[in-house]
């Protein structure tokens, strides 16, 4: 018998500016995230992960997959190009329509999905972004966390998506690793909040992560 799933969507900026150390740090961070989650029995039994990247193109590089069998591909970035965050959110809504199960009658619903979005810039496709944001806002996520990584990441756009915006001063390996560790702890809180209609309460972030109020 399959257990209820906790869908976790990770949207990652892979635009040209992420090339070099930042994208390397993202790959390391994702490995750390998975390693941490694998040590959490609740996550191991319930968490399903999907990875969507956005640069000039938006791609779902990992369809929603259970943590136990998930194989992480290497996340790569083109040399340059725009940050199509709006298109990524649009793709997200489309894949969720297909992948996330809602309960009714004989169907067993998933837990409410979690969304983590990370960018080092701002949406290039602003018109599309603005048209999708209300749909993200009205979707019944248990939690949406947006992360602005590095000096040129702009918090204000992320604030449109969610009230929970964190800012990382740099997009280096240490900072991103601690961000992904915190993400794993946040997913773990699903643990305590199984019967909830409220937004999840996040664990206190480490020093490298600044909550944007």
């Amino acid at each position, binding site marked *: *018998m399959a*257990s*209820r*799933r906790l869908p976790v969507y990770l949207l990652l900026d892979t635009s040209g500016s992420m090339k070099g150390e930042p994208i390397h740090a993202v790959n390391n961070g994702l490995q750390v995230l998975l*390693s941490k989650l*694998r*040590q*959490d*029995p*609740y996550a*191991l*039994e*319930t968490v399903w992960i999907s990875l969507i990247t956005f640069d000039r193109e938006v791609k779902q590089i990992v369809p929603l997959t259970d943590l*136990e*069998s*998930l*194989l*992480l*591909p*290497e996340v790569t970035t083109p040399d340059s190009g725009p940050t199509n965050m709006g298109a990524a959110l649009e793709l997200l809504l489309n894949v969720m329509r297909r992948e996330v199960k*809602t*309960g*009714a*009658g*004989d*169907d*067993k*619903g*998933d*837990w*409410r999905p979690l969304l983590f979005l990370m960018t080092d810039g701002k949406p290039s496709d602003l018109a599309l972004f603005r048209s999708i944001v209300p749909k993200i806002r009205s979707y*019944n996520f248990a939690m949406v966390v947006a992360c602005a990584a590095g000096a040129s990441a702009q918090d204000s756009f992320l604030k449109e998506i969610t009230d929970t915006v964190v800012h990382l001063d740099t997009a280096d390996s240490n900072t991103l690793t601690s961000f992904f560790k915190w993400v794993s702890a946040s997913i773990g809180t699903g*643990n*305590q*909040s*199984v*019967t*909830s*209609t*409220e937004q*999840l*309460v996040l664990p206190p972030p480490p020093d490298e992560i600044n909550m944007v109020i």
Partner: protein
Amino acid sequence: MERQQRRIYITQLLKQRSVDITEKQSALLEAYIDSEEVIEQCRLISVTTDTLVMNLQENIALSNIREKLLQLPNGTVDKPYTQTFSLTQYGLEKIASFTLQFPESLGINYDQQTGQISGVPLEQGEFRVRMFFKLTNQSDPEKTHEKEIAFVVNPDPKKLWRNIPSSADSIYWKPDEVKELTTMLGHKLAVASKRGRSHAHEGIFRDDDFEYFFDEQTGYALIAVADGAGSAQFSRKGSQLACEAVVNYFKQIPAEEYKQLDDVITAYHAQKDEASKNALNEFLTQRFSKAPFEAHQQIAAFAAELAKNSGKEVKLKEFATTILFVLLRKFDFGYSVMSFSVGDGGMGIYRRGEEVMMLGTPDGGEFAGQTRFLTMPEIFADTSFYKRIGFRIVQDFTAIVVMSDGITDPKFQTDANLARIEKWDELWDDLGGKNNDGAVVNFSHDNENTAAELLAWMDFWSPGNHDDRTIAILY
């Protein structure tokens, strides 16, 4: 090199070096091409360029292989693992031969003959499998290259769960597990409530609760089960207050009124006439809306008191809890069962192999875990409020069961299943010993250990279902 090739090669070489050849010199060149010396030199050039190109190709092939992220499908500790390993599946067609070497103590091996990777992983972790290989047509046939393949072995989630006792010094502490066995209505009531693994893992509290009473004088019995919301800070207290409030409410109803109710139910059963129907409705709409409202009010008052004493804001939703309860009475013609529910979990009157009567409909949402709570003021204003109240008369039953979603989620999976007799029969068989844990609950009336057995049974394993579990069974 053949003569023609030599000729082309030397002509091109001369052109490349900008050496012009006249008509006259051309004959000289023709003779030169056939000289022993040139034949030998051309042979050497040919060998050298062949080697050069081959080495280059080899390096490109090697670097392509080295750049590849190779990962085996994940394994899990103690779970048999079998995979067929083929070069084409990883795009490694340039490899002529290879062997795989797994870490020695891992318990996994590669069989060269069959191409199968198999074994039972003994250890969890992120491992590197070493692949030793040779390329097709490699320059040095003796040379072996090496490449690492990532292999993740997941831990067994069962072994990761910790069991940290909750701190008895904490505010509103309650025991992590409770069991009780009592007699009522000529039946036995076994109740067990156990903290879920997800709470035990964090050392936090059991948020479920229950309460019951049986009054010999009036002949009425009440069983209440409540499930505090996992996300709410003081829900363990909320569920306790809810159960206590409901029990106290029905305890304080005067014996005289219960006596009148007896007459109403008896008349209703005999005649189903308008007068008795109205009187019955009167009781249900009055008492079964006031009792939960009273419970709501008491929790609100408790929260307000806490706010006053602590000087901090305390939200009512910090005490969020569901409540399910039944009021029971035995008559000559059978049993009257009145019920109320807000939230998830389930209640039913079960007759083995025959029928189940669901009491109330669980409040569910689009997603799992979404439900409604007694602490939400809006439920009392809702037009569908009276649907929460139920009334049944049954001749007899195998069991009357009240349970939290910690039981219904793993055992019934969907709300639709709660109405299916097959699912209830499965549950009853499961309780009777048809399970993988060897747990047996003996429901004979002279068994004094029924509640203890029920508590032990409640330790059943169900992946992803680790919420608090509470079940009350009248049998």
